């Protein structure tokens, strides 16, 4: 047996055809990683097509995982281990992997036909394309067929067990057993005996192969560090799961039903699927006929006293825009979840981008502000969902929650939250004084601090009121075209959203000091990469600041950023937060845009930060344009 290579962390990429079961293999590997006590972060990277033609590069589905002692906050820049199930997977992944990476190939698929489908003129195993890498050629398909031949499966069914064979081999390489995966297979295929036994046999055969095969000496093994987590109970969590649970928690904290209305769209649909299975938490799920109906039904539900939530991706949010305006006008709570993806138009449905920030903050007709929040990691989706619902109900306003395709699908270990640690969400009620205040309709007696009105709902006797999209009198709520009244109502709507800042915590610095040369300011799913990059450069005057509340900003943000010579803003768009910071705070940030559909690499962030650190010493970029806002 080969000696184990000890490592603090390791990045592994699994890649194959859409039908090879790579995503399943990835999630099971994550489960086993959690059981082994390592920290991890994952990045599923799959094609837009459900089953792209086999063997093509555009049909490659991949799953990347970074595991180790931690804190692991990104799926890693360059994989040190690549498992490629076919030539196309190799072709797509090779440019990404680290120098001297270990590449496991399923050689059964390296036929002339597959090579040419992948666009290889010559076999990369012989052409020198793999020089410098440690290549481990394995006949994975043949070995799998051999392992499961006693079960009488068809050749194609038997071949499909190869992901479990590979998983078994991978577990051996990391010095782990296959017990947790066996448990899952047994449960998953409880009623399909043949498939269950075949997959178990493949899994065990893959694991045993490492032990027994003559080639085993050639296969490197790794001992990966365990993480030092804070004490507590943990589970693995994906962003969509955390978001669903967060919404359920918010409903429980407000003691209201939650009605989730949505229309299928990538990459937002996992939230719909998850919530559809949480009915007994007081959640109703309605699949509407279109995006507009989805937001309108959610708003109707809010009008009737439930927490109305709708969810979509950029193009769908665009369709919901008019109804969001209605929610602003009617002063009703509504949560809009935007799982951002590459655009414009249909764009890159399965690739990640942060390019809906303008749409969320500015994207409506007329003066129509709404609070905007963004989640930064899979687990963070839970807290942000609660916070967003809290704001919507307290201020009686629609709220936009930004997440993205990466967050929805990425997974990380998560310390189980305790619901008792969260304050209940209070609903604005009609007070005696409100009902007695002459001239003001009870429905429109707004709290002076939040400008939220009482949440009066049909069924309440004596409080009937009419509301809608027409401008209304600030006191009576009746239709009003009065000029002064419209001015006052517009100002009221603006102040209402501004007042959210009175209730949110001050902006904190994630890493580094509160003043210094360079502040790296991010939002959303770039958290992990920025954290990792800044973390590796501490002591050089660089700090990481990550903004959850994008509209309104925390009150101390301007003052905080004024303590840095330069503000670097990495974003997966062309500089939208930079615009917002300029607009709202009068500062002059340095944008670092990236719109390749792939998350930031730690290395590219380090490079950009280094450049800013150098410039901070010599070229003074005036951070503040408007001193008055500080």
């Amino acid at each position, binding site marked *: 047996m080969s000696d184990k290579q000890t490592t603090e962390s390791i990045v592994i990429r699994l890649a194959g055809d859409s039908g090879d079961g790579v995503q399943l293999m990835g999630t099971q590997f994550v489960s086993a990683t959690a059981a082994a006590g390592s920290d991890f972060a994952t990045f599923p990277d799959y094609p837009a097509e459900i089953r792209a033609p086999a063997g093509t590069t555009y049909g490659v589905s991949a799953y990347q995982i970074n595991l180790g002692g931690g804190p692991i906050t990104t799926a890693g820049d360059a994989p040190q281990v690549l498992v490629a199930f076919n030539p196309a997977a190799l072709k797509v992944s090779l440019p990404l992997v680290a120098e001297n990476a270990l590449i496991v190939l399923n050689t059964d698929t390296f036929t002339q036909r597959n090579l040419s489908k992948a666009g290889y003129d010559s076999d990369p195993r012989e052409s020198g394309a793999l020089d410098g890498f440690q290549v481990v050629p394995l006949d994975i398909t043949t070995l799998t067929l051999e392992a499961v031949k006693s079960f009488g499966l068809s050749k194609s069914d038997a071949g499909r067990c190869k992901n479990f064979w590979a998983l078994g081999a991978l577990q051996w390489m990391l010095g782990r057993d296959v017990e947790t995966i066996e448990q899952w297979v047994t449960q998953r295929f409880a009623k399909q005996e043949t498939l269950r036994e075949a997959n178990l046999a493949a899994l065990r055969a893959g694991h045993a192969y490492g032990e027994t095969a003559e080639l085993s000496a050639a296969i490197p093994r790794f001992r990966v560090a365990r993480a030092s987590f804070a004490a507590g109970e*943990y589970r*693995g969590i994906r962003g969509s799961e955390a978001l669903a649970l967060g919404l359920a928690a918010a409903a429980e904290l407000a003691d209201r039903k939650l*009605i989730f209305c949505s229309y299928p769209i990538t990459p937002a649909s996992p939230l719909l699927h998850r919530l559809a299975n949480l009915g007994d938490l*007081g959640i109703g799920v309605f699949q509407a006929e279109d995006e507009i109906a989805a937001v309108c*039904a959610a708003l109707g*539900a809010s009008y009737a006293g439930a927490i109305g939530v709708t969810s979509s991706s950029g193009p769908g949010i665009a369709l919901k825009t008019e109804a969001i305006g*209605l929610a602003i006008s009617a002063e009703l709570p509504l949560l809009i979840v935007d799982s951002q993806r590459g655009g414009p138009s249909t764009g890159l449905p399965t690739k990640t981008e942060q390019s809906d920030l303008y749409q969320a903050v500015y994207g409506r007709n007329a003066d129509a502000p709404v609070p905007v929040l963004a989640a930064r990691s899979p687990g963070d989706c839970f807290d942000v969902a609660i916070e967003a619902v809290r704001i919507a109900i307290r201020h009686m306003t629609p709220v936009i929650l930004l997440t993205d395709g990466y967050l929805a699908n990425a997974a990380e270990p998560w310390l*189980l939250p305790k619901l008792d640690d969260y304050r209940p969400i209070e609903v604005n009620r009609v007070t005696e004084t409100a009902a007695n205040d002459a001239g003001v309709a009870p429905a429109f007696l707004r709290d002076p601090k939040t400008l939220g009105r009482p949440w009066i709902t*049909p069924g309440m006797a004596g409080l009937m009121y009419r509301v809608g999209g027409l401008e209304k009198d600030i006191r009576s709520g009746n*239709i009003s075209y009065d000029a002064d009244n419209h001015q006052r109502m517009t100002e009221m709507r603006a102040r209402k959203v501004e007042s959210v800042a009175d209730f949110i915590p001050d902006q904190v610095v994630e890493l580094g000091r509160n003043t210094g040369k360079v502040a790296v300011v991010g939002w959303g799913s770039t958290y992990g990469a920025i954290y990792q990059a800044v973390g590796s450069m501490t002591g050089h005057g660089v700090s990481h600041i990550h903004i959850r509340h994008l509209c309104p900003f925390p009150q101390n943000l301007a003052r905080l950023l004024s303590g840095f010579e330069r503000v670097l803003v990495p974003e997966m768009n062309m500089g939208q937060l930079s615009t917002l910071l300029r607009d709202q705070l009068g500062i002059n940030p340095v944008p670092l845009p990236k719109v390749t559909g792939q998350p930031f690499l730690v290395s590219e962030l380090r490079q950009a930060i280094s450049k800013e650190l150098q410039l901070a010493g010599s070229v003074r970029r005036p951070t503040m344009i408007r001193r008055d806002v500080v």
Partner: protein
Amino acid sequence: MNAPAQLTAKDYASSEDVRWCPGCGDYAILKVVTQVLAKVGARREDTVFVSGIGCSSRLPYYLETYGFHTIHGRAPAVATGIKLANPALDVWVITGDGDGLSIGGNHLLHVLRRNVDLNILLFNNEIYGLTKGQFSPTSRIGTRSPASPGGSIDRPVSAGAFALGAGARFIARAIDTDKTGLTEVLEAGYAYQGASFIEIYQNCIVYNDNVFGDFTDKARAVDSQLHVRHGEPLVFGEGGSKGLRLDRRTLSLEVVDARAHADDVFVHDETNPVLAQLLLALQPPEFPVALGVLHRVPGQSYDQAFLAAHPTRLARTRSVTDVLRQTKVWRVG
């Protein structure tokens, strides 16, 4: 529902000033709506009127009930959300030919096929009134309007046929000024559990005056209106002198002498969708316009099905704390 008996039609009128044009058919409809609400004893706090955009959609402001004036075409979707959150409410949707059949056609289609328990009143005046008189999806070919100075070329949609095609299980028709007929269909729609679709021929005095005159005109009504009633023969004309008979060769209705062919006159069966289709297609001057409950088939409403299919009838029976652990959990420290 049991309501205090003392409420009268006036109790259902709000204090907001009514802002329709003098002589608009909407006034007559509003009045009958308040009378019907009083008659059926609707509880005001449990009643919600939801509307889209257009002249008709202003109606909720004028009623002392809950009211939500939403956005163009989307009232059925908003109303669906209201019913999902609280199925106990009586929810009415007020829409028009442009709101319901043009910009909101998709939502009307789906709310009907799902059979959401709503009373949907579509005020059809065959014109866009609030935007100053452009042709609408129900306007006849050749309608001259600011947008069609040479006459419109679009073929009109039949509201009732659209509803039937969408799978509506309750379809009725009435005329704004026909208090008896309108009262009857509103009461029937209110009693129906599911989506009741009621088309009301409504006169726009400013932009499309008298467009329905050929059958609403009192002098001609007896020959141009067919008031259908389940189980009764399809007769009209002076003293029921004319009847409708099925021409088996062409599968269409024909007008016959009701007395000479008494046995051949078709008897109205509101559960028969084929008959509903034939009745909806009748047009003057050859035929009378069919009014009343043209189609009614009982069936489970969507909101009831939604509750029935829900594992806990929307109740919270456990905490998110329990669900957090429904996966592999490991302990550190």
